[in-house]
């Protein structure tokens, strides 16, 4: 599998990268970890004339705290996010989800930003990002803008990041002490999610004070299971209320049908997995 010929640039600053993107426009593709871009190029499903490698831009990498937020550079590899103590402390759901992304090799190459911009509906970062109300910092020729998680994912493989823009940061509000779990359903270990459920709950005593539930691969974009959240908020953290709430998991979803299951089965799975994810989170979470 040999990609069509292309030219390659590796800018060292964001400005240079934006300039290169401005210059080559539609003919260019940004390269992050290459785990999704390169297969597509090698199968010749895409043949950009220019590949702009973001790998040498230091400012796009790393994780830091800023007030109430964690700031994760778009070019931070999955493995780094997954092992980061700040993430584990303040956004544990991301830690949970990163452990389930592909295999170790891909986690070391692929980046959190690349995965989110790629916006594969079966990808494992979108649902946690939505559940956590992450904000996305996007740089363009005209400056930077910030987009909320609810407005970020537009469709299959389509996000708010324009052709001439670069995702630079993912900002995640700290949810310290929340109980979390990412329940991923696959047939073989290193597989894209057939369905997955991301949950984060805050308990006050025996009551669910807040609940956030994201769904992977239940539609063209990652979804929030608002019905479940609504049904659970303010309810006792018991098996009964969780089961009742989880029954609403597939409300408003439009899951795909493929080799791994049809839409009806996925709707059923979403309910079972939501119940299990919530129970695991409530009883202490993944830790």
């Amino acid at each position: 599998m040999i990609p069509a010929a292309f030219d390659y640039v590796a800018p060292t600053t964001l400005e240079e990268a934006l300039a290169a993107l401005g210059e080559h426009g539609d003919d260019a593709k940004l390269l992050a970890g290459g785990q999704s871009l390169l297969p597509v190029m090698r199968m010749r499903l895409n043949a950009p004339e220019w590949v702009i490698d973001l790998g040498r831009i230091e400012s796009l990498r790393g994780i830091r705290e800023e007030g109430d937020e964690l700031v994760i550079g778009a070019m931070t590899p999955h493995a780094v996010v997954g092992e980061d103590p700040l993430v584990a402390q303040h956004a544990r759901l991301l830690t949970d989800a990163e452990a389930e992304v592909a295999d170790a090799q891909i986690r070391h190459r692929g980046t959190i930003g690349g995965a989110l911009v790629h916006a594969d509906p079966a990808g494992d970062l979108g649902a946690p990002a939505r559940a956590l109300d992450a904000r996305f910092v996007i740089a363009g020729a005209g400056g930077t803008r910030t987009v909320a998680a609810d407005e970020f994912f537009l469709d299959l493989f389509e996000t708010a990041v324009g052709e001439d823009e670069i995702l630079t940061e993912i900002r995640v509000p700290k949810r310290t002490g929340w109980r979390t779990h990412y329940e991923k359903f696959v047939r073989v270990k290193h597989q894209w999610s057939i369905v997955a459920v991301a949950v984060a709950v805050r308990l006050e005593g025996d009551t669910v004070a807040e609940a956030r539930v994201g769904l992977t691969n239940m539609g063209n974009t990652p979804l929030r299971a608002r019905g479940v959240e609504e049904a659970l908020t303010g309810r006792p953290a018991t098996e009964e209320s969780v089961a009742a709430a989880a029954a609403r998991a597939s409300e408003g979803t439009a899951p795909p049908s493929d080799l791994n299951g049809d839409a009806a089965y996925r709707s059923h799975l979403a309910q079972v997995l939501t119940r299990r994810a919530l129970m695991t989170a409530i009883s202490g979470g993944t830790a």
Partner: protein
Amino acid sequence: MTTVDDRSVAEAEIGRDRRRKEDARLITGRTRWTDNITLTGMVHLAMVRSPFAHARVTGIDTAAAKQSAGVVAVLTGPELGEEMGVLINAWPITPDQVTPVHTPMAVDRVAFAGEIVAVVAARSAAEARDAAELVDVDYEELPAAVDLKEAAAATPENGGALAHPDLGTNKSALWIFDSAEAGTGSDVEEAIARARTDGVVIEREFRQQRLIPAFMEPRSTVVDPTGEQLTVWSATQIPHVLRFAMAATLGIPESKLRVIAPDVGGGFGGKLQLTPEEWLTVALARRLGKPVKYTETRSESLMSAHHGRDQWQKLTLSATKDGTVTGLKVELLADLGAYVAIVGGGVPVLGAFMFNAIYKFPAYHFACQTVLTNKTWTDAYRGAGRPEATFGIERMMDELAAELGVDPLEVREKNWIKHEEFPFTTVAGLEYDSGHYEAATERAKELFEYDDLRSEQRRRRESGDPVQLGIGVSTFTEMCGLAPSRVLGSLDYGAGGWESAQVRMLATGTVEVVTGASAHGQGHETAFSQIVADRLGVPFEDVEVLHGDTQVAPKGLDTYGSRSLVVGGEALVKASDKVIEKAKPVAAHLLEASVEDLEFRAGTFSVRGTEAGISIQDVAGAVFAAHNLPDGMEPSLDSDATYDPVNFSYPHGTHLCAVEVDTETGQVRMRKYVACDDVGTIINPLIVSGQVHGGLVQGIAQALWEEAVFDESGTLVSGSFVDYLLPTAADTISFDLDHTVTPSLTNSLGTKGVGEAGTIASTPAVVNAVVDALRPLGVEDVTMPCTPQRVWQAIHGAGSGGSTPGAAMPHFESGGAAGNQEQPGASSTEGAGQ
């Protein structure tokens, strides 16, 4: 001090856990795979393949491709014409078999998606690929025969799609065995009729899904036409068969052809083929007068290298009320794909002898209809015919047990051949030489803690646990060690089944061993070294095993059908014994003793009752010098032997599998797997474990994960490893293995084949376990692969779980700059899954 006797026992190589000598180079990549070969002036090929399953080719415009940078030639089927030759089927299973002509490149019509329509040669592989994208082919789509049952029923009259309209039918051959006719048993219809009034009749239909061998190294061929001989390197299991077939079909004298299979990265039957790509690489090399290389991509490999299995099995089993089987009737439909491959319809026919398995069935009828469709051709895949048969009968024995309400092991024991009944001639006409099913089963039960797991199963059933436990049994045997040439001849197979070996004592005492069994990952070099080291009494390290090059190993029939050890190993023993026989008079001469007084042990000829002795290495040195040999003695110890087996070998074993089935999601989780195999004498336990482990995973994968899925138009949907689910180590559990040893009586080492055993046995063990877990919920079958959705649907009353939706996961976003519309293998990505 140890005596000579003790030393030979202490140092016995046979039975020793030798690490594989080939692994260092294979694992570190310090070896030469075909694709690593680079020759001066070599050009590279890229294939243009049809994206349609069935279409008339109405025009091919190669002008733009010819203008593309670095292009040396662009050729189509009509342009190459007879130069490209034809591909042959070596096993027409009936005299009236309908066999479509198979040219390596389509001439005016394509019969499966992936068939080659043009070939580009260029200075680099990248330039060849670039130019291939520019070849513009006009197709006029034809109705495609995709579904096996529909294809079998199609006729010109009913308007069903025909894979090759000119043939007027999709039916290729009907092969029948009937025990009453053959005189090996009684009439099956009578047995069934009797059981219908006073007994039990079980009727089931099972699907053997299509599988893809998915060997690790994609296929690759390099051809050098610039020497006196035409040299062909190919990632193949069968260099000797390839040489023979090329000579027979391309008009190249066999003596002018040298075929080399260097280190080959796996095959599983998938490289037991004469491929269009090999033929085209030869044709281009001859036309251009330059070395040519072709290496397929993974997408091309999945789509166009032959697939395996793909059958519908209709089975009827009759028994008395006490569980004694009185007859078995087997009606198969087998999908050949678009062409009849080298073994082709012979694959299901191999299964004909195995449906009766380890049992004493008095009546048996087998009928197999092979069918042409517009899909990738099918052929041997690990087990070839025997996994299908074993699956069918082992599922049926579980169904019989369930019907009678008895333990599945009990019903088997009632019907199997007792160990004191060997040798036993089966209802299919084979003579099983040895076996001990009771012993293997006893040991397997013990390791499995069978009774404890049955109690746990009962507890879970009683408490209504959402996770149910199932126990699956598979007591298998198989015929391997292909094969007695006469038997192959009686089945109209196009070649024999002997194997050849050569043993050369070098002047310095090391040994070169040449085998015609060409390895592709099995560990021949290690196991064969152990055999020769023991036989000749030389150090293991001093034995070098050579293979895979027709100039080094001129005679051979290669590696498949678990034949290398039982046939090739026996040839090696015979060649080694000849070396000893030749050395003996020399030793006697040097020791000034008579030949009758010599004995040979642990590498030394000694004079009985004295201290005098000489090592075989020293004899080799003396023969090399040739200064002092007996009068008239030829100065050489080199020996060869060609061994034609007198019978197949019949490994057997009892496999027990426990699975946990999550009834809420349908997910199946492996809990425990015990395999107690009897493969006769074990040369290297480590290699045997490796073969069993790998075989088990491959068989389990058929039960749970793998399926080649085509959509209605005949496009392979599972065209990448995202959708064709291969297991990794992370998906398996640690297996519990043990062995009983009942030596084979048909070869001197007592070995039986082990290469396919795990694959053959494990698939029904797993499916039986899944069904066993769910039987109280009314489930009596789950179609393979037992996907979570199928299991869940079966629980919820949808029969055996329904078919697989024909859509891939859309992970590869297309679109963007200058994508290519007709890239085969790129099963539609955009919009799929909505």
